[in-house]
């Protein structure tokens, strides 16, 4: 079992969600984040003072999957983002999961993930 943590662009969330569903991945958790990477910062001017928003808004997507789904999840995420140009499309990190428990039933392991 792996935990896929993807930092993505907010506007790409909806197509990524659709792509995941196409690969039969229905469950995930998202949260807000701010990211600093190589991307061009957004130029804000507040009362005449230019300040670059170095920390850009990102969405953090967590998907716990069984090992055989890792590639499909990664593909789904990349398929959408790769079409666009520019920088700032983010990263995917794959972490090992030692155990997974479904809280409601107490099921564990591969059964609990889906």
């Amino acid at each position, binding site marked *: 079992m792996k935990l896929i943590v993807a930092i993505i662009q*907010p506007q790409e*969330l*909806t197509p990524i969600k659709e792509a995941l569903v196409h690969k039969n991945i229905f469950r995930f958790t*998202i949260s*807000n984040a701010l990211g600093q990477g190589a991307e061009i910062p957004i130029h804000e001017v507040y009362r005449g003072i230019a300040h670059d928003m170095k920390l850009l808004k990102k969405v953090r997507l967590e998907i716990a999957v069984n090992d055989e789904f890792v590639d499909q999840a990664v593909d789904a995420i990349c398929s959408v983002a790769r079409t666009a140009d520019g920088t700032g499309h983010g990263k995917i990190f794959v972490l090992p999961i030692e155990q997974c428990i479904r809280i409601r039933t107490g099921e564990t392991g591969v059964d609990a993930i889906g």
Partner: protein
Amino acid sequence: MLKRAPIVLLIITVLIPAQAGASVEAVQQNLNVVWTIMAATLVFLMQAGFALLEAGLTRAKNAANIIMKNLMDFAVGSVAFFALGFGLMFGESNGFFGTTLFGLSGASGDSWIYTFLMFQTVFAAAAATIVSGAMAERTKFVSYLLFSAAITGVIYPVYGSWAWGSLMDGNGWLENLPTGAFMDFAGSTVVHSIGGWLALAGAIVLGPRLGKYGRGGQVFAIPGHNIPLAALGVFILWFGWFGFNAGSTTVGDGSIGRIVVMTNLSAAAGALAATFTAWVAFGKPDVTMALNGALGGLVAITAPCATVTPIGALWIGLLAGTLVVVSVTFIDRTLKIDDPVGAVSVHGVCGLWGTLACGLFNAESQLQIGAASTGLLYGGGFNQLISQLIGAGTAFVWAFGLGMLLFTILKHTIGLRVSESEEIQGLDIGEHGMESYAGFQIFIAE
């Protein structure tokens, strides 16, 4: 027929009046000034009401842009109406529009004209600001400034001169119809429908917001980001409307109490009707529909507020509240025109309804006021209704037609709509390089 007191009665002027020898007429005239200025002040605050309502019913990422548009259309409108619009509307008419009083030039020494200008300025700005709601979340700021100027400088005042010109030096053809004068006491048509039909043209030419309609024709909801702010906007609008309707007497006398009561009853009935209609139709009492319903009741009573009975006012409001819900749903789901705040339904449709309601519910003789403009339901025949249809129809053709033309020209010249990526990121950053709620965590996806 009760009309706003024509200007000839009002030009008695005194400058420092509280002196021996001041006449009763002079004091009454001073009272008229005080009342009209207070009313104008209340109507001014409606600008804030519109800003909050529109900002609240759209997304956080566009809030500063919407507020800025409301601020700017008042600023642009104040100058444009002073320089151009007031003359077109109330100057001596060439039969089609006024041709004097531009920048108040040639105004007599009489101070009443300033009071009247102020009251009319806030009306003109209201017509302009209605449009911003329907075009929210996707319109280029610079184009917005341009068409704001066009509305307050030309489109609104020319129509206004037809219906209200004789309130000062003008003389409008709608005031001299063979079936009797077109009646629009405080502007259901002159202000609200004109604004509403322009809004309709704008929403059509712009097209819907990204994500509003699916490829398969599904309709998606794009919830507003701040309901308390939107509701505050509606309370402020209701507050200002007492000045809007009762101030249109421009005379401080006993009739303003009656007008205020009618205004309030119709608004209350509108809010109730919309709430229950939405409750039945959608299963829950939708707050934003209740807000729109109150506004619908207010728009509808604007024309007939001085000439109907309390029971008439209740009926007008009830129907307006129901109409708003039906109209919002129809425009959104069937016509697939994306009007984020329901401006077309509230101002266009309910303005039309209120204008026609004069022809149905007018009851001047029953109220023992003025001569007798009596609507169909009180046995007055079809004449008034026909005049109302002519006036309202003219407004639609003028405002919607000119709106389509204007917005299409803008679209093909400097552009009417922001880029797709700017729309996704939000107009606050795109147009103004800032955020409305710095520091707050907002889910910008979805």
